[in-house]
């Protein structure tokens, strides 16, 4: 579904991603871990097309299409969803109005009829239960005055409404207490399906207790320095990121080989 090849990206002229190569197949859940500043959130921003994140090298293919050539809204309509680390408040715009427009923009893109207000509300109320949200939030302005936990639940709620092919969860666990974490994770797990892929970005392992990843990648200084199964996350938790940094040479050279193969001999 997603093929990232030797991806380099800059923010404000500074190299942040320095050659990421990653394959994500439908049905898989990949965890991306790493210390602060390793480039985790930058990866999410580059994949969703945020302004100010400049790709200098490499390619990203999504369902056979050049993802980097698409505008942010096109990527969203094609099925790329980002659960924001810091969901944005939009005063004066009700959540229902906002999400109905979003759902219908995606439906229109796929040649489907727009949902009318009745159908939309019915669906929204159903999905809201999944993340234990009171229906009243539909009438409140998007994220305005929401608690940290409510904002994150609202992100997952939007994901369930939009049914993306690829969901990127950026630090969805940050700022959540244990109960909220469980609720959010339940919502995410309910969304797992053979057709859907997820990239779960997190600093801590605790989210991965609730959301079982098929693969774990550790990011350091803009590169994936180690990849492995779910057990890698536990190892990181036990030993800290310092352990990986010391062991990074092997992982790095291995990936460098892959990258080279992709770029071809000309470069």
């Amino acid at each position, binding site marked *: 579904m997603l093929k990232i090849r030797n991806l380099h990206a800059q923010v404000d002229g500074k190299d942040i991603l320095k050659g990421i190569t990653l394959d994500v197949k439908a049905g898989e859940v990949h965890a991306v871990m790493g210390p602060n500043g390793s480039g985790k959130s930058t990866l999410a921003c580059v994949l969703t097309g945020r302004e100010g994140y400049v790709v200098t090298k490499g390619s990203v293919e999504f369902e056979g299409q050049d993802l980097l050539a698409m505008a942010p809204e096109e990527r969203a*309509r094609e099925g790329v969803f980002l659960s*924001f680390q810091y969901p944005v408040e*939009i005063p004066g715009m009700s959540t229902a109005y906002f*999400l109905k*427009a979003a759902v219908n923009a995606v439906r229109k893109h796929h040649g489907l009829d727009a949902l009318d207000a009745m159908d939309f509300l019915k669906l929204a109320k159903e999905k809201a239960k999944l993340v234990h949200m009171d229906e009243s939030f539909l009438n409140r302005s998007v994220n305005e005055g929401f608690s940290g936990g409510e904002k994150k639940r609202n992100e997952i709620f939007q994901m369930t409404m939009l049914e993306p092919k690829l969901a990127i969860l950026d630090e969805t666990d940050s700022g959540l207490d244990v109960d909220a974490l469980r609720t959010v994770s339940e919502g995410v797990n309910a969304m797992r399906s053979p057709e859907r892929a997820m990239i779960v970005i997190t600093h801590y392992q605790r989210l991965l207790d609730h959301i079982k990843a098929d693969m774990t990648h550790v990011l350091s200084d803009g590169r994936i320095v180690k990849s492995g199964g779910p057990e890698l996350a536990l190892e990181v938790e036990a030993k800290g990121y310092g352990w990986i940094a010391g062991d990074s040479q092997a992982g790095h050279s291995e990936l460098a080989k892959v990258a080279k193969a992709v770029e071809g001999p000309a470069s």
Partner: protein
Amino acid sequence: MSKSTEASDFVDQQEEYKYGFFSDIESDVAPPGLNEDIVRLISSKKEEPEWMLEWRLEAFRAWEQMNARDGEPRWAQVKFPPIDYQAISYYAAPKDKKTLESLDEVDPELLATFDKLGISLNEQKRLSGVAVDAVFDSVSVATTFKGALADVGVIFCSFSEALREHPDLVRKYLGTVVPVRDNFYATLNSAVFSDGSFCYIPAGVRCPMELSTYFRINAANTGQFERTLIVAEEGAHVSYLEGCTAPMRDENQLHAAVVELVAMPGANIKYSTVQNWYPGDKDGKGGIYNFVTKRGKCMDNAKISWTQVETGSAITWKYPSVVLQGDNSVGEFYSVAVTNNMQQADTGTKMVHLGKNTKSTIISKGISAGKAQQSYRGLVQISPKAENARNYSQCDSLLLGDKCGAHTFPYIDVRNASAQVEHEASTSKIGEDQLFYCRQRGLSEEDAVSMIVNGFCKEVFKELPMEFAVEAQALLGISLEGAVG
């Protein structure tokens, strides 16, 4: 003809201002300049009664004094070069002035012009039940639904016609709300006003439909000086819609209108405006100067409500006001003003509380984008006799980008201790993060901006009549195109 074709081709290629075309109807234009002879010419062209000419001449002399003494007012926060009042032509009328029995007799090119504006009269007649008094170059050429209105005694006609058919009514109320010497532009208007609308709702009558006038400025170098007078007798109700578009033009065009509303005891007047005159190009070239005086007077238990959505004009100078003269009277002002590129606006309202238990509400939403500068200027005045007066004011500004400005100048003058006056103000910005959030959910940038802006303006839009609300939302989208990113 070739000029017209070229112009419309030119405009077809330019999306910025879709109403900018030039129609090729020959105009009967007065030579540029302003003097007593011109005032006499206007009056005689319109076959006005003697008292009307005297009234105009009095205004003209007052204006000459004002002009010699102080010149045009400069206290507003807008910048423009001095206007050469002698370079303006003060009268233009379509040449064919014979009375028309039906729309079929109207110059087809004129009708086509209206079609371009999206106000097909036939369509209006059939679909919306709105009577349209279309003002074209200062002279009304078509008025519809007159019959239905006449049945209940409502008079809705051009100002010239009112002067011919109902001179006593006009004479009784003209200048009673905005006096001849009120201010520089109102005085100028009083001297040279060309045409406008007159409405009279008899006592106890609820006007059976919304009354609507579309204004349009057409001939080059022609100032437009509209005069509107609406009188609602005791217990009468009326809702009046004013909508405007103007063709593209390089020279700045001056528009100095006067609107007077008279709400007798228990009467209710709702006046809604959607204004999208040519704002000038991106560099501030061209565009309309909109210097307008709008004021209403409320007697006991009467109510006047101004609702406006302003997206056009290079410069706006406008303060629709209510004088709450009678006890228990109510004044309202709901406004959305959008300025983009080099537009400037200094706008707001005045609520003058004279009677007891008078109430006023002000909701002002200003949106600034590009390099535009916008000011809210509002006066709330509670006189010594206005026991238990109440006012609530809310002024919110929304900024798009970092080169525009929003300013608020509230004037609060309270001379009675029992008054309750509240003022709230806020300034916010549409951020890159909000836009990205919307786009990440599949919304286009334009839709995102328009949804955020519409959310910001919701409180005002809900005051607009339905068909206007739709047009207003569309207008906001057009005016803010390309404002972000």
